[in-house]
């Protein structure tokens, strides 16, 4: 762990603690030098500093730096970055990238289930159930099929099609919530807790921190399904992506920008904002808000408390422990590679299941909410 400051032993210890809790993404950024996977099964896929490189296809999956040819799993900022020579993704993912970064060079849309030959590799996209447009990348080369899951979940999401199980030789999976302590509860019950809090504190605004892409729209839809039909107020950074979801047919109901509202108009209302705005100066416009945050990390009390969250909502767009294990059983791959998250625990579980597994230690992908860097929001105050 490099250069953690501290003027004495106690302070250094203190700094380290914070560093581990908050700076995990930085800690992960140790030298992931050019490595070649030894697995004979798919020696044509390499881990490079840019990301997962598919050599015979001449493309990189979710590259963290500009490359000639990128294939993107979904629109979150740590997976979809601007500036590549050519970009292949689903139509919604390309639309999301356009909203965030403007038009990209060499955009090419591929629908779910449609096959495309890139170089010597046949590529197909299948729903991952993570956010609108999220896809698994199914690749076949010389009789070997490899599936890159991207980020995914297995439970129902009213804003995107469900994860499609695709049998394969090598399954390359995420492991964001790969610890048995992560067992996301029913999302309907979490929404009920939010509404119960509104009953208990009917005069306080309920400020819910949620990612502008995916989480926000899912929360809105879950609220609507629970019968909540009042207007939902939005931080300015939320508007564009909500409009995009509407364009793709997700009926979000009445949404109102926070900007320009008198303070009293927000009392007793639900206000959605990016997680970073919860404790930002922006939130001062609200009168004693109940601060809620929707994230899988909210399962751990200390993490919720550290963020000053009063009402943690355990709602995640990632697979929890049981979903991960269920996916391993459903996909039943010959071998599993683990990209990012708590690789060691998932590798251990696979070992117990008798499935060969290894950690790739990919860099540049954030833990959900670990740092608010996942979805870089426009700095416009709402």
């Amino acid at each position: 762990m490099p250069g953690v400051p501290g003027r004495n032993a106690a302070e250094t210890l203190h700094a380290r603690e914070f560093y581990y809790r908050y700076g995990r993404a930085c800690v992960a950024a140790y030298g992931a030098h050019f490595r070649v996977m030894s697995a004979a099964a798919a020696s044509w896929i390499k881990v490079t500093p840019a990301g997962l490189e598919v050599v015979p296809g001449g493309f990189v999956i979710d590259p963290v730096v500009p490359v000639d040819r990128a294939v993107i799993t979904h629109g979150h900022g740590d997976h979809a970055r601007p500036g590549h020579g050519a970009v292949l993704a689903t139509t919604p993912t390309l639309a999301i990238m356009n909203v965030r970064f403007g038009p990209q060079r060499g955009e090419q849309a591929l629908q779910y289930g449609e096959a495309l030959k890139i170089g010597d590799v046949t590529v197909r996209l299948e729903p991952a159930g993570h956010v609108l447009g999220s896809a698994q990348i199914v690749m076949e080369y010389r009789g070997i099929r490899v599936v890159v899951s991207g980020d995914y979940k297995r439970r129902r999401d009213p804003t995107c099609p469900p994860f499609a199980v695709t049998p394969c030789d090598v399954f390359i999976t995420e492991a964001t919530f790969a610890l048995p302590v992560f067992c996301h509860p029913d999302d309907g019950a979490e929404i009920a807790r939010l509404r119960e809090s509104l009953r208990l504190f009917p005069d306080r605004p309920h400020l819910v921190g949620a990612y502008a892409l995916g989480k926000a729209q899912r929360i809105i839809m879950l609220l609507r399904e629970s019968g909540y039909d009042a207007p939902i107020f939005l931080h300015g950074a939320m508007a564009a992506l909500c409009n995009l979801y509407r364009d793709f047919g997700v009926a979000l109901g009445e949404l109102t920008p926070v900007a320009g509202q008198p303070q009293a108009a927000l009392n007793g209302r639900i206000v959605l904002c990016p997680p970073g705005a919860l404790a930002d100066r922006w939130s001062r416009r609200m009168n004693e808000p109940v601060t809620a945050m929707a994230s899988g990390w909210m399962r751990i009390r200390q993490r919720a408390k550290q963020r000053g969250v009063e009402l943690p909502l355990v709602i995640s767009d990632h697979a929890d422990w049981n979903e991960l294990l269920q996916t391993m059983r459903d996909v039943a791959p010959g071998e599993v590679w683990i990209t990012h998250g708590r690789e060691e625990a998932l590798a251990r579980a696979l070992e117990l299941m008798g499935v060969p597994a290894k950690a790739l230690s990919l860099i540049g992908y954030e833990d959900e909410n670990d740092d608010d860097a996942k979805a870089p929001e426009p700095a416009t105050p709402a």
Partner: protein
Amino acid sequence: MKAFAALLDHLVYQPSRLGKLRLLMDYFATTPDPDRGYGLAALAGTLDIPHAKPALLRKLISARTDPVLFSYSYDYVGDLAETIALLWPAGGEATHPPALGEIVTTLRAAPKSKVPDLIATWMDSLDATGRWALLKLLTGGLRIGVSARLAKTALAQWGALDLADLEEIWHGQEPPYTAVFAWAEKRGDKPAAARGTSFRPFMLSQALEESELTTLNPADFIAEWKWDGIRVQVAGSTLTPARLFARSGDDISATFPDVTDAASFDAVLDGELLVRGDGADPAPFADLQQRLNRKVVAKKQLDTYPAFVRVYDMLFDGEDDLRALPWTDRRKRLEDFMEKLPAAAQARFDLSPVVPFASWEALTGIRASARGAAMEGLMLKRRNAPYIAGRPKGPWFKWKRDPLTIDAVLMYAQRGHGKRSSFYSDFTFGVWRDDELVPVGKAYFGFTDAELKQLDGWVRNNTTERFGPVRAVAPGLVLEVAFDAAQNSTRHKSGIALRFPRVSRIRWDKPAVEADRLETVAKLVEGA
């Protein structure tokens, strides 16, 4: 159990006192007897159940999960109860989750050998939050930021009861407090206070505004030293064990057996709990702190920091309730009582002297000259005032000595909580030792809201490093910090701890190099 688990879960995250009260009142309103009474007891620390040791819990979980995955999880979560609650395999939905009352009564009746099976069965039937709450309950010490006092305040507010009335009958009642809830719901009469060693609400003082002195007649008042210990009520008894109550109404008898053992007399006394330093004089508060909040008292503690009570009022003399009498009469009874006290008891109870004075000017001089180790200033008490529960305006004033001040440099700022969560509002400050700054304390009040905004802006613009909610700042802002006393401390790097530090002025004008040095602060330490 579900309602209690939800309550604990919400309380953990609730930063504001009002919010906590709201949650507690809602719990009392929506939870039936006897569960709410046991819930109240758990919060107030009066629930007596056999506790489960961490080793037992580890054994239970290790039979249900892979040890490697357990260790990864525990490393990540950090809290044993929470790790186990989250890891416990779900799947017992078929069985009905137990009510809190059922858990309490079953545990009390069960032989020790049956406890592990009971716990496992309950764990199987609860959800993750329920399991966490159960483990908190079983391991003792909820640590969720709710004091007994706050729980009782919520009950009083919810039932529109007078808190002093509730405090008075509280120690005569037992969980699950059904009679108390019946009283709160106007279904029953006020329960009777237990005879003898029960708690009586304290009479508290107002802070004196010095400008008020001109409106007060010095002949109407007496003065006493204000001692820097903790206020206690001694409910002595010749028949049952004596009890010692803190101002909150908490029973702290077990922590101070040296005091309660000596209180075999039939009287209720009001005074200051102190420990002796070298010789007979009271030691600074830091020494008393060595004795506070201990469940088990080591002999070494008893010998090194012997406790005693400096008595200044008398509520009961035998069966006689003196509270309606004027101070002068109570004082006479107290002095007579203290004189007759056996020698053994005199080592643990002495009389707080009255400080004679002729005029407010003279008393001002006396106040300025006094800086004993455990003196905080003066108390003014109206001669004809009865002993009134609560904080009446007029009969008693506290007149603290002027605070000490130092000029310190802001070193770190931390985000506040609740309303202040978007502000850097908790400030760690330091003084110079040679050419480095050493932290001497932390202050989070003393400034106005407008100043807080300015401070917050300054912190944001002068941040050098960030550690989660904490920012280190460049040494560029001087804070004038006021405090009641400086004491030696082995816990702080600087070797000095300040009592009640607060920001008295922000010295935007003063260069950091001109802030105080550690040697200067060391000279302010009591007894130095």
